[in-house]
C-alpha cells in the first residue's frame, strides 16, 4: 500500500517537474485517490480560503513561514485538489505547506489534509450560478471544522458568515480584519433574523451570534494586539485589503510559532502575487494589473485606481471560473468612474458597456484588453480585470515579455 502510494507520488512529482504542475496533480490524483492525505501526512499544513484575498494571503503567509524553513505553496492560484497535490509534490522535503483552497472544495480538503491552521478570510456572493447560496457554503464549512478538532482556525471577526462558520471549530483566533462589503450580511446566518450593525460591532437581534473580541485588529497600516501592542505593516502591495490579508496571515503565522514582527517583516518583501499589481509594458504604455472577481473585490479595486487623467480599462469575462452570469456588475459602484477615460473590455464588454451607460460613464468598447490599452496610447494605464480576463492578460504579457 505505502509502496504504491510512494510510486504514485514520485510519478506525480516527476510529471509536476516536467511542466504542467496541474497536469501532474491530475495524474497523481487519478493514480491515487488518497494522494492528498498521504502527501499531507507528517507535514504542517495551513489552508487559506474565502471569497477574496486567498491568493495574496497565501503568498504572504508562505513568505512569513518561509523564515522558519522550506515551504511549498500553490501561489499560482490552482486551488482545487489536483492543484494542491501538484504543490505538495513540488518539494517532498518541505515540512510546511501553505495552500489556497477554493471555498467549495474546503470541506473535503480539511478532511484530507488534517491542517494545523485554517484561515477563513470572508464569504460573499461570487459565481452564484455555480455555488448556490453563500450561507450553504458556510454551513458546509461548519460541518468540516466540527469534524477537525485538530485544526486551529484564524477567522475574520468582521464577517458574520465567517464567524458563524468558524464557531464550529475547536479553537479560533479572531482577527478584526474589516469588511467593506456588507450586502451579504443583512440576516443572521444562524437564525435568519436581522443583524444589527453599530460601526464595526454587529450582533443578531435574536440569537447569540455577535462579533467576537478580536485578538488582532487592523488600524490603518498598523496591527494592534488585544494587549495594545502595535506593529506597523509596510507592504509593497497597495490597499487596505492587503493590510487585512497581512493581519490574517500574521495571526496564522503566530499560531505556527513565527512572531508577528518577524512575519510582518518577511511579508514586506512581497511585491506581487501571481501577477496581481504587476506592471507590464503594452505597446508604449505601462499597464498596472488589478484583479477583482466579485462585487466586494471590485469595491476594493476601484479604491486602488490611480487618480484621473490616468485611463482605466475594465475587462470582464463570464466563463465557468468567473461565473456565467455577470448580473453582479450592477452591484459594483461603477458610477465612481464618471468623468474618467474608460474602456469596456473582455468577452462580456457588451454587458459592462450597458452598465457603464446607466452609470453615466462615457466609454469606448474594445473586447481585447491589450488592444484596449494600446488604443489609449497613454503612458500609464490601470487595467482591472476579473478572473479569466486577468489570467489571459497575465499569460499574454508573460509570453510577450
Amino acid at each position: 500500500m505505502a509502496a504504491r502510494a510512494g510510486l504514485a507520488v514520485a510519478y506525480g512529482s516527476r510529471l509536476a517537474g516536467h511542466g504542467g504542475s496541474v497536469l501532474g496533480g491530475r495524474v497523481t490524483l487519478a493514480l491515487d485517490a488518497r494522494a492528498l492525505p498521504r502527501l499531507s501526512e507528517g507535514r504542517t499544513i495551513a489552508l487559506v480560503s474565502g471569497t477574496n484575498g486567498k491568493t495574496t494571503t497565501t503568498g504572504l503567509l508562505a513568505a512569513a513561514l518561509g523564515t522558519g524553513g522550506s515551504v511549498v505553496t500553490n501561489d499560482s492560484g490552482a486551488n482545487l485538489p489536483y492543484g494542491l497535490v501538484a504543490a505538495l509534490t513540488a518539494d517532498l522535503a518541505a515540512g510546511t505547506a501553505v495552500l489556497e483552497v477554493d471555498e467549495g472544495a474546503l470541506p473535503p480538503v480539511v478532511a484530507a489534509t488534517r491542517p494545523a491552521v485554517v484561515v477563513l478570510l470572508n464569504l460573499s456572493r461570487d459565481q452564484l450560478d455555480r455555488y448556490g447560496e453563500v450561507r450553504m457554503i458556510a454551513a458546509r464549512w461548519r460541518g468540516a471544522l466540527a469534524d477537525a478538532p485538530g485544526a486551529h482556525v484564524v477567522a475574520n471577526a468582521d464577517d458574520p458568515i465567517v464567524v458563524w462558520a468558524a464557531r464550529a471549530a475547536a479553537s479560533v483566533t479572531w482577527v478584526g480584519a474589516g469588511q467593506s462589503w456588507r450586502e451579504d450580511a443583512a440576516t443572521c446566518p444562524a437564525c435568519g433574523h436581522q443583524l444589527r450593525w453599530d460601526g464595526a460591532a454587529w450582533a443578531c437581534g435574536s440569537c447569540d451570534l455577535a462579533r467576537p473580541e478580536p485578538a488582532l485588529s487592523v488600524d490603518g497600516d498598523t496591527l494592534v494586539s488585544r494587549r495594545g501592542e502595535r506593529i506597523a505593516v509596510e507592504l509593497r502591495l497597495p490597499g487596505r485589503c492587503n493590510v487585512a490579508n497581512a493581519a490574517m496571515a500574521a495571526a496564522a503565522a503566530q499560531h505556527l510559532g513565527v512572531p508577528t514582527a518577524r512575519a510582518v517583516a518577511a511579508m514586506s518583501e512581497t511585491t506581487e502575487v501571481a501577477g496581481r499589481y504587476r506592471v507590464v509594458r503594452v505597446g508604449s504604455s505601462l499597464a498596472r494589473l488589478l484583479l477583482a472577481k466579485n462585487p466586494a473585490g471590485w469595491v476594493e479595486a476601484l479604491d486602488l485606481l490611480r487618480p484621473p487623467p490616468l485611463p482605466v480599462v475594465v475587462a470582464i469575462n463570464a466563463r465557468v471560473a468567473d461565473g456565467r452570469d455577470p448580473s453582479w456588475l450592477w452591484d459594483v459602484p461603477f458610477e465612481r468612474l464618471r468623468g474618467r477615460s474608460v474602456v469596456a473590455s473582455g468577452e462580456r464588454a457588451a454587458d459592462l458597456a450597458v452598465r457603464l451607460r446607466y452609470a453615466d460613464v462615457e466609454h469606448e468598447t474594445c473586447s481585447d484588453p491589450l488592444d484596449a490599452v494600446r488604443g489609449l496610447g497613454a503612458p500609464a494605464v490601470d487595467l482591472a480585470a476579473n478572473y479569466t480576463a486577468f489570467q489571459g492578460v497575465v499569460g499574454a504579457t508573460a509570453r510577450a515579455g
Partner: protein
Amino acid sequence: MPADSVVGIALLHPELLGTYGDGGNALVLAQRLRWRGVEAEVLPVHAGEPVPSSCELYVLGGGEDAPQALAAAELGDGALARAVDRGAVVFAVCAGFQILGHEFLIAEGPRPGLGLLDCTTVRRAPRRAVGELVVEPDARLGLTTLTGYENHAGLTELGPDVRPLGRVMAGAGNAGDGREGAVVGRVVGTYLHGPALARNPALADLLLSWVMGRELAPVDDGDVERLRHERLAAALGRRARLRGWRRRVAIPVTR
C-alpha cells in the same frame, strides 16, 4: 420642480433581495425617465422601515432563503397591496416574484406570500434551473423577445387569475411548463435576471408608460442592442439554426 412631479421608485429590501444585481432594475427605470427629462428618485427601503405609500413603482429582486422569508414577513403589513390597489406598478424578480404569490418554499418549509399574484411556489425542481433564459412575450404586451439569466430551484405554478409574461424559448422558466413569469394588471413577476430591465429596455419602457399614462419617446439604446444581439445569439444560436427560429425571433441587429 414640485415634489409631486418626481416619480418615486421604491427598491424594496435591497439588502435582502439583491443577490443577483436586480437592484439595477430600479436604476434602469430611474435613468430612462431622467434621459427623457422626467425627474425620478430611487428610494431604497430597508428591513424595519415602513414601505412608502406614495411611490409609483415598487421593485423587488432575488435573494437567498432566509432573507426571502424575512422580506416576505416585512412586506406582509399590507402596504404593498394598498399601493397596488392605488394603481402602482410592481416589478418583482425571482425570490421577489415568489413572495408576490400565495405561498413560497424555503429550506425550512412553506411560507405565506403576499397574494398579489395568483401563483404558488411550493415545489422544488430536482436540479436548479441555471442559465440563459429567452422568452417570447405575450403578444398583448407589444414587446420584443425577452432575454435574461435564470437561477432558481423553486417551481412556480400559475393560477387562473394571472397570465404568463411569455412563452419559454430557451431555459426553464416558471416550472418547466413552457410558461415564464406572471402578469396581472400592473404587477409583473419574472425569473429573468440580467437585470431584466437592463437587458430588455422595451419592458422597462412598458412599465414606465403605465406610470406616465403615455408612450415614451425613444432613447439611444445602441449599447443594449449590441448586448441583446450577443445574448440572444448565444442562447438561441444553435436552436435557431436547427429549427429555423431565427426567422421567427426578432434578434435585434447591431446598429
